[in-house]
């Protein structure tokens, strides 16, 4: 059975403001990511990072649908996934900066975080089979494994091997596809024949497409299908049609100014700023200041220490 449920946001309709805790989480992730780009510019961050600017609402919408015993696997663009699961920005920033109090002693960095029931890793598609294994362990307990992937990930064969077994064995696996229309520098239309929907259908895996960027609307649409995953009905693919408003990594946006403007036009941040001029700016400023304090505090910490086993 393949069910398709679409939700959509009507921009002409004045949205209801999200709950304050959702807004605060959205803004925490937004300012966390903006701060990382700023720290790179000033030479205080090394290596690489991939921000989720514009996509923050996805993990925020999903957060209350998860239970403590669920296991979330994430990818290279995982800061938002982490902060929505565990609101520990100090520890995450310390990991990215290699400072005391880091989640993984600074060994993993931006793309390799394992904390409680959250694990991210940096090779595309690799986490899907791992997620099937975790889901196999969780089957029958009511818990699920969730794995975040992008549109580019669907070029990897591991995705299909994993989907096949997930469906054959009906494991509680939630595949969240963040389709932001571009894989690093390659537009999705140039790297994907057919569609995610058709690929899910080929494996007889239920599929939901989400076009809304409103967390309440997304949750309302996903509550029942996610519950079905828990109850043993098998895996589910949820594709979010989303927009990357920042660069792939840092300063490497190959899109035209028009394309970037088009993506920015979908930004929840700009929309809320316009729709809620009385309440939003204060919340926004508070989040910005909070992350600035976190960055100052973490930057001042001594380097992390790795006790090699």
């Amino acid at each position: 059975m393949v069910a398709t449920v679409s939700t959509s946001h009507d921009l002409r309709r004045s949205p209801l403001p999200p709950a304050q805790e959702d807004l605060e989480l959205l803004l925490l992730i937004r300012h966390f990511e903006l701060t990382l780009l700023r720290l790179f510019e000033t030479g205080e961050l090394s290596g690489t990072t991939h921000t989720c600017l514009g996509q923050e609402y996805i993990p925020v919408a999903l957060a209350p649908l998860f239970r403590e015993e669920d296991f979330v696997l994430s990818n290279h663009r995982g800061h938002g996934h982490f902060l929505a699961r565990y609101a520990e920005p100090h520890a995450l920033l310390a990991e990215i900066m290699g400072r005391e109090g880091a989640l993984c002693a600074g060994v993993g960095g931006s793309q390799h975080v394992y904390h409680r029931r959250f694990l991210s890793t940096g090779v595309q598609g690799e986490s899907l089979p791992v997620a099937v294994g975790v889901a196999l362990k969780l089957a029958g307990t009511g818990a699920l494994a969730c794995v975040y992937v992008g549109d580019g990930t669907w070029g990897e064969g591991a995705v299909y091997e994993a989907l096949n077994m997930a469906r054959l064995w009906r494991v509680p696996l939630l595949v969240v596809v963040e389709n932001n229309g571009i894989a690093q520098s390659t537009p999705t239309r140039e790297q994907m024949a057919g569609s995610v929907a058709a690929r899910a259908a080929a494996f007889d895996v239920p599929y939901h497409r989400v076009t809304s960027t409103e967390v309440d609307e997304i949750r309302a649409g996903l509550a029942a299908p996610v519950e079905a995953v828990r109850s043993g009905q098998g895996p589910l693919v949820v594709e979010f049609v989303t927009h990357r408003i920042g660069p792939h990594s840092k300063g490497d946006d190959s899109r035209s100014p028009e394309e970037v403007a088009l993506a920015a036009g979908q930004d929840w941040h700009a929309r809320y700023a316009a729709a809620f001029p009385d309440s939003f700016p204060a919340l926004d400023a508070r989040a910005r200041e909070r992350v600035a304090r976190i960055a100052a505090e973490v930057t001042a910490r001594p380097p992390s220490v790795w006790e090699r086993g």
Partner: protein
Amino acid sequence: MTRVSEHLNRALHDLMEADPRVHLLGEDISDPYGGAFKVTRGLSTRFGHRVRSTPLSEGAITGIGAGLALAGDRAIVEIMFADFAALAFDQLVNFAAKSTSMYGRPVPIPLVVRCPSGGNRGYGPTHSQSPQKHFIGVPGLSLFEMTPFHDAGALFAEMFAQERPCLLFEDKVLYTRRMYTGGVVDDLFAYEVRDGVARVFVDGVSEPDCVLVTHGGMTHRALEAARALLLEDDVACELLIPSRLYPLPELAGLERARHVCVVEDGSAGGTWGAEVSRVLYPRLWPALRRPIGLLSAADSVIPAAPHLEREVLLQADDIRNAIVEALS
């Protein structure tokens, strides 16, 4: 008499009976087929969904095994032919092995990937390789090989105790041979297993002319060479056969020999033997009378036709001739 394949099968039965956390995944491993080499016979009947025949997806089943291990269970994955382990390289190297340390603390990944390896059966280039060398030197990954001397149950226990992914190579020809018991190999040779290393020796010879360091799949060819060397060339050989190939365990007693030679079935170039000699040279340098010998298969694919396959893979005569030449 117990064949090596039967011995492995019994060990898997005992392991799955004793430890409900253990899962087994692989292609065509369920009854009545019981695996391409029958090593998993009876397990699916007895242990139900803990034993899963899978689609042809070596990469994903290795990843699924790693996921089970990450979540607190234990997994054994069978790769039907060791050549196909190349399809699981990413999951082994980039996920399972790296995850044991890249999160800044030890993360247990109790995963064993069984790989039927080796040639001399005429299966041709993609079903005959001994690909151990491709997995050597990967941080977080251990290599083991079945031998006719080592208890498989103890090997599985040792591998899971590592809490990191392990490859277990099982030579396909070895499957049909018997397990040695009671310290006796044959009328000439005895054996003992100490600290994970099997030592095969001529009773009463304390200072052998030559020590052959080899792996499980080469046992019988090395033994045949040692027999001929003793009876026809008056050269006393000892064999050291570790069950763990990487990291290499302590190989005791090598200082006593006039010559040390590493004998392996992998193709020449970037070999296990090179790694063994890298470890041994600093220790043995003062005692060595000549370079450590390195014998391997040719730098070649493995042909299907038996006469061509024999030319490429290392045979007993090749070993004997090389030792005679080295000691002459």
